[in-house]
């Protein structure tokens, strides 16, 4: 069929020309009466873009007049609409006609309505305000008895509909699910699918009706319902596991050819349906052995049936392979799928080859041996003339990169990078290269050079993570100090060389990296003096092509170098130059520089050498202001609101209704906000004293916003490469490795090496061996645990200093033998854990590289374990966490409490309480108090002791509170007589009405002595916010719901040492000192909840990173988060 189309269409240009010249054959097709025809022909006749524009503007202005004229009939309007659509397609603005399109849909007869609806769906998008005007028309047409009208309305609803108007049509559309015509039912299902996409909550109640649609007797309706199911299962597969059987049955019927023959496509039964079902099954069977077992048969059958050599069968095969590799593996199926991939990869058809590569990329982590099988094809694709094929190949190689093949692969990637122009590709590729370089760099020189290439090409478009991570890597270094110095020195030298190149242009970001590195590490240089470096920086500063941001980096570098420089005429000229600069920022820096120069002592203190990683002591929480803040707050000052909160409130005032739910994001990078190294370099000059900086940042590299993709060990320089001469020796040894591998691979593939190989062949073989080195031996292990390259983020293990091939193989054999014997993954993990603990199995540490690539989720636990030096069982099993609230579950009646309280000193109550504290006394009487932190209130117990030997009369205790405290349940305030040497207890419960940091509860005690003169004593007790905070025990699910419903939030980063910031200790502190309830722990993130009595909940989400905590509070009360944050900072500071 397609051939026929091809032929007809090939004949077209000729026809077209003819038509222009003679107005012949084609003219008959489009009658002259058609105004559109005239327009189209008019445009085709034109030769220049300019003429076209003129003609269309003319057309548009005449249309504008026509549509607005009252005399225009609907029939003419339809004509106009068609022309407007055409003009808009050519890229001209026809927005004046939008409203008329809506009118046409509303008023026209069927014919006109159809065009009106079409125009609306083409002109407007779903957020367009005019769309609201369509709602009534749609409602009317949905109720029409004319099928065509209902169809049209459903068609437009399925494409664009305003989200907030869904309730207006929803019941009508629900009714249509029972309509007798299948076309109506089908369209109704698709309309509901659309609603599910834009407002899932609104269609939640009709999920049961979707099930009916799935069982519809019409194939089209059933197929339409699969769109909804695919989407819902993607979002949450666990709720639909029970449908697996139905999907399998449907697929069986489809594959078995049980559907009406109409649904065949090129004699393949309903391919679209098959693919949809396969995708659904893939999602359902993921990581679920029992569900997967249900589908093995039908997958096998699908593979078997798809034999025809047609594109559409390949489409099904591809989906089958994808599904087979997604679900719980079955070796027999995997084998077949692997053969199938082979068919794709080896196909001469380029589309199939591309998909073969794509499939390989997908499965390679599970089965690296497949890459070995197809290595020659992969090599060929690497030099394919089609850049798309090349790119997919690089993607594949990226996934199989290891320490041995890194140089070759990165070289290939860089080659591609230099040819690429599209920004998206560059950003993507640059990120990958940087990631690989940090993970597997063989030596310093290579690493720095590769990163130089990355910075030069990626320049100003790349992700800011890349330079930030790079700088962090340099600054933090690894375990070995000399190694670090070598790396830094190399970087410094390479940058100086780059700066020497005349007329070279470097991206701003690269220059910023250079200036930071030079500023920090130029002191490592032997030959070049700091003056020379400053001279180079100065030259850059005077370059007009430098952005002002970069200038700030440069001047910061100069500032850092200045204490090391002896004579500094350049600095002087620089200061002169920039103290009069028009750029205020630069002027500021220049003045700072000037003042620092005048005070050498200070200069040396604030600009220490190589201290970028050591935090200066800056009180980030500004605790020295606590007293002041508390006082001001008590005097009624408004509590501090962070900038974002003020903005939100402002927005909230402007908008009356907010339809947007507040999004909950636990992404690692999302909420802390990235901090660029600008903070680092500027932080180390004097600008750190501004309040803004002081609050948020301390004076060191602080990059918590950055994804922890690359750990310290990510980049593993080898020991033997430290000295430069050894670096030179490296290539030779690598070559020998390569040669060995050639032999290995050849024997592995059972192909005796050809006696006479062409040079090209040899080169390819060599390339192959260098690319696929290290893959074969890993395969046994990788088949067991699904490998995942991302898992390196959890890597925190002893560094592999030296890898000798012999040891590797022995480790491999050991590992594989122990792994092979294990039947399931859990055992395997256990074993791994044991192995780790077992120091005797030292050889396995050489294997850590391998273990790293396994993706077991327990890994982060292991990491934490080693961090805290705890045994495996003690971290999360350890529930000393709960011990701090031993009383939570035991209910004690208040009455009981009173009696207990009287004998308090002997036996403590079961609730938590503070120590007894004397609040006032004189020679006859003493008042002490203690707090009992009850679940529902704060109970204050006052104990009045008569120390004298005589009775006291009319004793009266009166508690007065401040306005934000409420005192209730006062019991027995008045005592007619206190006997000699006795103690009486009173209690009252206190509630907090407004959050505050510290409140004061004051009281008076009155009594009469025997001689009836009356004495009055005053006392007061301080209450802190924490006295009113109680753990809130909720589930993670509730947490999520609550989180979304709260509008007030506060975010803050707290900096602290590594050991403090470790998850368990942070949790402990928070639970113990703040009485927060730990809701859940997800990786390095924790969810905590508490409530302010009586019942104001507050939620805390916190995340641990290298040097601090990112805290995020949310509450229904606007001020509570701020207060809690303050308390948090305090306790974290103390601990």
């Amino acid at each position, binding site marked *: 069929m397609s051939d026929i189309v091809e032929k007809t269409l090939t004949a077209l240009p000729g026809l077209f020309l003819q038509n222009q010249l003679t107005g012949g054959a084609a003219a008959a097709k489009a009658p002259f009466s058609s105004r559109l025809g005239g327009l189209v022909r008019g445009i085709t006749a034109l030769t220049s873009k300019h003429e076209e524009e003129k003609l269309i503007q003319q057309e548009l202005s005449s249309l504008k007049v026509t549509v607005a004229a009252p005399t225009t009939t609907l029939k003419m309007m339809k004509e106009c609409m068609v022309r407007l659509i055409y003009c808009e397609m050519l*890229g001209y603005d026809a927005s004046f006609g939008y409203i008329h399109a809506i009118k046409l849909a509303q008023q026209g007869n069927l014919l006109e309505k159809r065009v009106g609806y079409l125009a609306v769906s083409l002109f407007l998008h779903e957020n367009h305000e005019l769309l609201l005007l369509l709602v009534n028309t749609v409602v009317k047409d949905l109720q029409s008895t004319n099928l065509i009208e209902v169809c049209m309305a459903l068609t437009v609803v399925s494409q664009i509909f305003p989200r907030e108007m869904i309730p207006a049509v929803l019941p009508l559309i629900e009714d249509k699910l029972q309509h007798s015509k299948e076309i109506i039912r089908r369209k109704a299902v698709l309309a509901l699918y659309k609603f599910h996409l834009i407002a899932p909550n609104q269609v939640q109640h009709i999920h049961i009706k979707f099930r009916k649609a799935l069982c519809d007797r019409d194939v089209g309706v059933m197929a339409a319902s699969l769109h909804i199911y695919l989407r819902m299962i993607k979002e949450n597969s666990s709720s639909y596991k029970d449908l697996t059987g139905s999907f399998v049955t449907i697929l069986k019927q489809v594959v078995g050819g049980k559907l009406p023959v109409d649904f065949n496509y090129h004699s393949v039964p309903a*391919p679209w349906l098959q693919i949809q079902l396969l995708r659904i099954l893939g999602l359902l069977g993921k990581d679920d052995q029992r569900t997967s077992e249900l589908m093995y048969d039908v997958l096998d059958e699908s593979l078997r049936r798809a034999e025809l050599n047609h594109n559409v069968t390949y*489409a099904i095969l591809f*989906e089958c392979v994808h599904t087979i590799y997604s679900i719980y593996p079955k070796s027999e199926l995997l084998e077949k799928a692997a053969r199938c991939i082979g068919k794709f990869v080896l196909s001469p058809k380029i589309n199939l080859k591309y998909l073969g590569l794509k499939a390989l990329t997908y499965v390679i982590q599970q089965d690296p041996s497949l890459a070995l099988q197809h290595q020659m094809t992969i090599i060929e694709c690497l030099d394919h003339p089609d850049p798309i094929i090349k790119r997919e190949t690089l993607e594949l190689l990226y996934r199989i990169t290891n320490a041995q093949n890194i140089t070759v692969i990165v070289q290939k990637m860089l080659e591609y990078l230099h040819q690429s122009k599209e920004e998206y590709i560059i950003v993507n590729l640059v990120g990958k290269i940087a990631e690989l370089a940090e993970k597997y760099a063989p030596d310093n020189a290579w690493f720095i050079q590769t990163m130089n290439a990355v910075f030069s090409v990626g320049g100003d478009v790349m992700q800011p993570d890349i330079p930030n991570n790079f700088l962090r890597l340099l600054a933090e270094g690894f375990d070995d100090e000399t190694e670090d110095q070598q790396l830094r020195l190399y970087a410094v030298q390479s940058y100086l060389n780059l700066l020497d190149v005349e007329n070279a242009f470097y991206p701003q970001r690269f220059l910023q990296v250079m200036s930071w590195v030079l500023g920090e590490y130029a002191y490592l240089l032997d030959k070049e003096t700091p003056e020379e470096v400053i001279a180079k920086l100065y030259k850059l500063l005077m370059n007009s092509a430098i952005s002002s941001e970069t200038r700030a980096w440069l001047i910061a570098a100069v500032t850092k170098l200045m204490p090391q420089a002896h004579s500094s005429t350049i600095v002087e000229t620089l200061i002169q130059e920039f103290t009069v600069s028009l750029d205020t920022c630069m002027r500021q820096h220049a003045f700072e520089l000037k003042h620092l120069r005048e005070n050498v002592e200070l200069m040396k203190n604030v600009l220490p050498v190589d201290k970028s990683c050591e935090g200066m002591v800056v009180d980030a929480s500004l605790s020295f202001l606590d007293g002041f803040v508390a006082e001001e707050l008590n005097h009624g000052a408004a509590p501090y609101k962070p900038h974002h909160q003020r903005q939100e409130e402002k927005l909230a005032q402007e908008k009356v209704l907010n339809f947007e739910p507040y999004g909950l994001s636990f992404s690692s990078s999302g909420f802390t906000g990235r901090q660029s190294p600008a903070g680092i370099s500027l932080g180390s000059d004097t600008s750190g004293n501004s309040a803004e900086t002081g609050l948020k940042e301390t004076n060191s590299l602080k990059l918590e916003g950055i994804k922890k993709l690359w750990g310290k060990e990510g980049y593993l320089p080898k020991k033997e490469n430290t000295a430069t001469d050894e670096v030179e020796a490296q290539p030779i040894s690598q070559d020998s490795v390569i040669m060995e591998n050639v032999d290995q691979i050849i024997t592995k593939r059972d192909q005796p090496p050809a006696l006479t190989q062409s040079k090209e062949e040899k080169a390819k073989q060599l390339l192959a061996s260098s690319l696929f080195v290290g893959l074969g031996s890993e395969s046994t292990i990788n088949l067991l645990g699904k490998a995942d390259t991302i898992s390196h983020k959890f890597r925190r293990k002893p560094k592999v200093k030296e890898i000798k091939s012999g040891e590797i193989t022995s480790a491999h054999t050991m590992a594989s033998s122990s792994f092979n014997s294990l039947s399931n993954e859990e055992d395997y993990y256990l074993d791994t854990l044991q192995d780790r603990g077992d120091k005797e199995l030292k050889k396995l540490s050489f294997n850590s590289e391998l273990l790293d690539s396994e993706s077991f989720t327990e890994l982060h636990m292991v990491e934490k374990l080693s961090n805290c030096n705890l045994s495996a069982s003690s971290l999360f099993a350890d529930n000393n966490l709960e011990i701090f609230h031993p009383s939570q579950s035991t209910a004690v009646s208040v009455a009981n409490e009173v009696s207990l309280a009287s004998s308090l000193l002997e036996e403590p109550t079961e609730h938590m309480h503070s120590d007894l504290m004397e609040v006032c006394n004189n020679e006859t009487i003493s008042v002490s108090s203690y707090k009992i932190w009850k679940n529902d209130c704060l109970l204050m117990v006052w104990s009045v002791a008569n120390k004298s030997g005589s009775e006291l009369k009319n004793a009266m205790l009166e508690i007065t509170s401040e306005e934000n405290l409420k005192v209730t349940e006062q019991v027995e305030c008045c005592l007619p007589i206190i006997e000699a040497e006795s103690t009486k207890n009173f209690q009252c419960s206190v509630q907090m009405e407004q959050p505050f940091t510290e409140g004061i509860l004051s009281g008076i005690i009155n009594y009469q002595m025997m001689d009836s003169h009356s004495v009055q004593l005053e006392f007061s007790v301080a209450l802190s916010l924490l006295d009113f905070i109680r753990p809130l025990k909720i589930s993670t699910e509730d947490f999520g719901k609550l989180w979304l419903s709260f509008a007030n939030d506060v975010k803050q980063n707290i900096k602290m040492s590594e050991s403090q910031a470790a998850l368990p200790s942070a949790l402990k502190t928070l639970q113990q000192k703040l009485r927060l309830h730990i809701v859940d722990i997800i990786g390095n993130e924790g969810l905590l909840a508490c409530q302010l009595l009586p019942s104001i909940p507050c939620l805390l989400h916190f995340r641990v990173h290298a040097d601090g905590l990112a805290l995020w509070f949310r509450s229904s009360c606007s001020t509570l988060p701020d207060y809690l944050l303050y308390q948090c900072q305090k306790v974290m500071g103390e601990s």
Partner: protein
Amino acid sequence: MQFMLLFSRQGKLRLQKWYVPLSDKEKKKITRELVQTVLARKPKMCSFLEWRDLKIVYKRYASLYFCCAVEDQDNELITLEIIHRYVELLDKYFGSVCELDIIFNFEKAYFILDEFLLGGEVQETSKKNVLKAIEQADLLQEPRHEYFNVPVY
């Protein structure tokens, strides 16, 4: 599917259908970039393109390019067959379709597309059903003679 574009070898847009809400400016930019990229590709090259974070699937029929944007995890080959099925539908409706049919009756081409794909998803895969739906709508509203090419069923 995110959108579908039909354009001629000269880079003239013949049909555009957007299934994701985008501003006009953005649409124009995408169209311009894509038309340029696709036209620059050689005939022997692969029918798929990675473009931004989308997958572009295109196929040329005579002087007309059919170009669809799908998400990365979608199946490229079946998208290619979607294009083909659409061409088949056009062909059956117009009776050996040519570019001129689509230019002069582009609203018909849209109607057919809307019966086949709805909101970016395949609505009906049976050729018979799609054409039946179109035919019914046509019959109710217009006299035959206006359209030279409407086949007799």
